[in-house]
């Protein structure tokens, strides 16, 4: 017999958990699947304190936000089933998905699905980038903050976005020496308070630089970086060899979109949102009207906006099955209001612009 649910949620990060909790609170039967052993997505690795409004989780450490969301999920367990170590691998027609757990592969039939698959890390081409000791930032965080293992003794960080800056800080806290941070752009990409935090602990920040090679036999012994000109071309004779046993890549994220493509959702390329994303309307609904989206899968942002997007998707998916509901409307209105504030100002400009493009694009299709 096939498993049945009203709302299937794929992914138990901040967006998926929030979507599942809201839909279950409203009264929908919800099944959440996540391929990790722990709920909370990337939040479980975030030991730093989050920004945001004092009204919602500001100043709280990431893992504590995950704990809070798990408590919310436990409170609605009557309507919310959760399967860990389980991936959603594809759709069969409009109302069925295949899920794979360590025990079995089985079909699930659903009325709506909310895809909150998050993002994948980008890589970078340079000589010997397959040498042991070259890590993605996510792996470094998992080793360090989930399993309590230092990835190395001396690490070079590539990328000055918030992930590069924050992971550098966490490495220092774990007792790892961060020998430098390399950024191809002339300016630091992440929040400057995070940059100051690692700079005053002695981490040199090399803007206008890139990594040319990882050096060593069998494992990383050093890295060679060089200066870039304003056209991002290498400046000759500016090579600098930095001793390290680890190189950490934090060069951006791309939305994880396979399920949307397989579900025939119209996709759209928006560089400001991290690349190809599904077209979505204000209700977080894709062009396949049974498929909703929230979180980084709908465009790279951060956890607070993922939570709010998830709440909207959960409420809208519920309404699309059960009809308009006052409580759902209130949740949607509150979340939209908060999102508007969080995305305002100059740091929210890129995301705002990207989101506007999506809304305009879906209006004409």
């Amino acid at each position, binding site marked *: 017999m096939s498993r049945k649910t009203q709302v299937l949620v794929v992914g138990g990060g901040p967006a998926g958990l929030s979507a599942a909790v809201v839909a279950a609170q409203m009264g929908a039967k919800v099944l959440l699947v996540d391929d990790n052993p722990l709920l909370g997505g990337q939040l479980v690795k975030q030991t*730093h*304190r*989050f*920004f*945001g*409004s*004092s009204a919602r989780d*500001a*100043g*709280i*450490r990431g893992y*504590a936000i995950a704990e809070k969301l798990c408590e919310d999920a436990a409170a609605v367990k009557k309507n919310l089933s959760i399967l860990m170590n389980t991936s959603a691998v594809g759709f069969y027609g409009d109302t069925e998905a295949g899920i794979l757990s360590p025990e079995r592969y089985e079909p699930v039939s659903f009325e709506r699905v909310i895809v909150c698959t998050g993002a994948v890390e980008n890589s970078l081409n340079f000589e010997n980038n397959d040498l042991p000791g070259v890590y993605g930032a996510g792996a470094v965080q998992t080793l360090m903050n989930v399993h309590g293992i230092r990835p190395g003794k001396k690490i070079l960080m590539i990328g000055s976005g918030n992930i590069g800056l924050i992971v550098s800080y966490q490495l*220092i*806290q774990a*007792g790892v020496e961060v020998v430098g941070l390399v950024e191809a752009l*002339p*300016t*630091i990409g992440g*929040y*400057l*308070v*995070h*940059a*100051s*935090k*690692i*700079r*005053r*602990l*002695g*981490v040199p*920040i090399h*803007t206008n630089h890139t990594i040319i090679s990882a050096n060593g036999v069998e494992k990383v012994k050093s890295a060679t970086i060089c200066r870039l000109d304003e056209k991002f071309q290498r400046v000759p004779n500016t090579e600098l060899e930095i001793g390290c046993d680890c190189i950490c890549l934090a060069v951006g994220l791309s939305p994880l979109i396979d399920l949307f493509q397989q579900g025939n959702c119209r996709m759209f390329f928006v560089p400001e949102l991290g690349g190809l994303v599904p077209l979505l309307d204000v209700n977080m609904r894709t062009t396949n009207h049974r498929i909703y989206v929230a979180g980084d899968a709908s465009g790279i942002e951060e956890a*607070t906006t993922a939570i709010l997007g998830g709440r909207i998707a959960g409420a809208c998916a519920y309404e699309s099955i059960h009809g308009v509901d006052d409580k759902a409307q209130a949740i949607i209105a509150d979340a939209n209001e908060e999102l508007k*504030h*969080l*995305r*305002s*100002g*100059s*740091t*929210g400009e890129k995301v705002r612009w990207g989101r506007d493009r999506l809304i305009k694009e879906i209006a004409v299709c």
Partner: protein
Amino acid sequence: MLINDGIFSQTELESILPSPERMKKGPVAIIECIQDIPCDPCVSSCPSHAITMKSGITDKPCLDHVHCIGCGLCVASCPGLAIFIVDMNYSNRSASLTVPHELLPIPKVGEIVAGLDRAGKAVCEAKTLKVIKSKKYDKTMVITIEVPKEHAMAVRAIKAGKGMGK
């Protein structure tokens, strides 16, 4: 410039510093946050209502130095660890400096630590005056040190442990 290397330039610093007259009057907060980011816990942490954000949560904090009493409650409230308290009146030759701290080892009161400037260079020795570990501060420690007056506006972090003081 801050956006190129993570270090405040003199011009950038001047935009946020209290007046020399205010500095003479005793402890005051220095908020080293000059970028529009979506964050506002400092505003509600201030018992004197001296911190405001004109155009909402993504604005920069604006501190009214006249009304700031230098209580230090904002220091641990800042998720960016960007708020410091400087008291130029601590003694004839030294100032007290309060910094947020999230690293091991934790210095003991009386211990000599290294005072690090905004580029991480050890510029002076400093005596630990106070260490606040509060459940409310959620693992961020608030540490007050005594520094020579001439380094009070340069030191922004500490390094504790063996060999830091003589």
